[in-house]
């Protein structure tokens, strides 16, 4: 489904990603874990098209999308729920969701997706006339994910979905990610909450200072010495 091959990305000539490769097979949940500032978000941004590649390729379903603008990648089935949610706070919940479906012309299909989103997150239907910025962190995260689904993606990129929300809601959000995956959407997830992320991921990558240092199934990584020492406190 997604094949990232040897990409390099820099911010104002300072390298941020060195030769990153990863793949997401159709129907998989793949997690990228690692500490802050190691390039996890930059990797997702590069896949979505927000950061330009210095080198390497990004192949989506046999097509090189690495040079396309972000909006063209949305059309091809990549949707991203960005770090910090990036909702349109002064627009209503309904308007945020509508904007999520911006690339889609068939209003009947969009209405179907909207019903699916409301089934996943009933609170969004109750709050649809409320301004997005006035909701709680957890509700905003649900809206951000719902908005990402409105594009009807093949691949959903999720950047820190547990960021800034109450611990009991984290479980709900992660369960929902599994449910979304069960509908056939492949998922690439960046998470600080390593234990939780590895628990739901089919496979995972560990990133350190702009490089992939480890790859394996969620279970393998949970048991690996490096991960235990570096992230799980021995």
């Amino acid at each position, binding site marked *: 489904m997604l094949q990232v091959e040897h990409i390099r990305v820099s911010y104002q000539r300072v390298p941020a990603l060195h030769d990153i490769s990863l793949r997401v097979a159709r129907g998989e949940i793949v997690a990228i874990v690692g500490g802050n500032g190691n390039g996890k978000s930059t990797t997702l941004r590069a896949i979505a*098209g927000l950061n330009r590649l210095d080198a390497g390729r990004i192949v989506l379903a046999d097509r090189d999308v690495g040079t396309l603008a972000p*909006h063209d990648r949305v059309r091809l089935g990549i949707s*991203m729920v960005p770090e910090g949610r990036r909702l*349109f706070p002064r*627009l209503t919940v309904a308007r945020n969701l509508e*904007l*999520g479906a911006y690339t889609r012309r068939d209003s009947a299909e969009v209405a179907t997706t909207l019903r699916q989103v409301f089934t996943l997150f009933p609170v969004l239907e109750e709050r649809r006339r409320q301004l997005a910025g006035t909701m709680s962190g957890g509700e905003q995260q649900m809206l951000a994910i719902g908005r990402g689904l409105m594009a009807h993606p093949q691949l959903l990129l999720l950047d820190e979905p547990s960021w800034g929300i109450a611990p009991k809601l984290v479980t709900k959000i992660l369960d929902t990610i599994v449910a979304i995956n069960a509908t056939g959407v492949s998922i690439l997830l960046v998470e600080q909450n390593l234990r939780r992320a590895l628990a739901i991921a089919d496979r995972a990558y560990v990133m350190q200072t702009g490089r992939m240092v480890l790859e394996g199934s969620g279970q393998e990584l949970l048991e690996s010495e490096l991960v235990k020492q570096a992230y799980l406190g021995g």
Partner: protein
Amino acid sequence: MNASFDILLQTLLSGVLIGLIYALVAVGLTMIFGVMDIVNFAHGEFLMLGMYASFWGFALWALDPMFTLPFTALMLFGLGSAIYHVVIRRIIRAPMLSQIFTTFGLLILFRGLAQFLWKPDFRTIDHSIVQGKVAFAGLQFGLPQLVAAAGAIVVTGIVWWFLQRTRLGAALEATAADKDAAALMGIDVQRMFALAWGIGAACAGVAGALLSTFFPIFPEVGANFILIAFVTVALGGFGSVAGAFWAGIIVGIVEVLGGFLLGPQYKLALVLALYLIVVLLRPQGLLGRA
């Protein structure tokens, strides 16, 4: 009703009429700023070009400015988006100083071109279909001013409707709020920037066309409006279309009423004093985001 009250009311309403034109100019300026954080110093030149488009339509083919107005709007829309694609696009990520020099350079370019091509003379359109005066309830207004104010309301209303009720308008608002998030929605951000420049230039061009029936037309005419437009945008709140509209009316009233009460030489000083008060008390403007 006594006579001095009549005069005061007459002056107040005259202020509202010119204020509506200021509002339209400011709506265009605030739209460009709101969507891409670039201050367009050449905005007055879009107004000047709208005036000349009206003038030449009238002088060459005897077409009334009110008739050519939609074409003027389209022409300026095309010019605005072309300027975005050819010039502004290259300086989006440039330092602010480069952006200022660039739009200031456009100002000099268009003024120079107008002087070169059309001479620095004052021109007027003398026999438009809108001329003469209208009297009611003891008050008297020029028909051109009334028509211009009505036109400014209609065009501002169309822009407002477009932003609030259409898909493209929502995309433009989303781009103004958060460019990366808009791109992730599948919005072509470059296209939105060009659209903002097109609409911004068209607003100024239409204001020029509406003014052309009662205001002299000359290459530097934009200078009379750009300073007031900046004050209006700041007063309304940078990037706020509704704010620019109400601020335009307030600026018009302050200018005309203040000029009447204190003397016309203080007109601009009063407008700028109003600006200083706003900056001190409410720097985000009337409807701006804090």
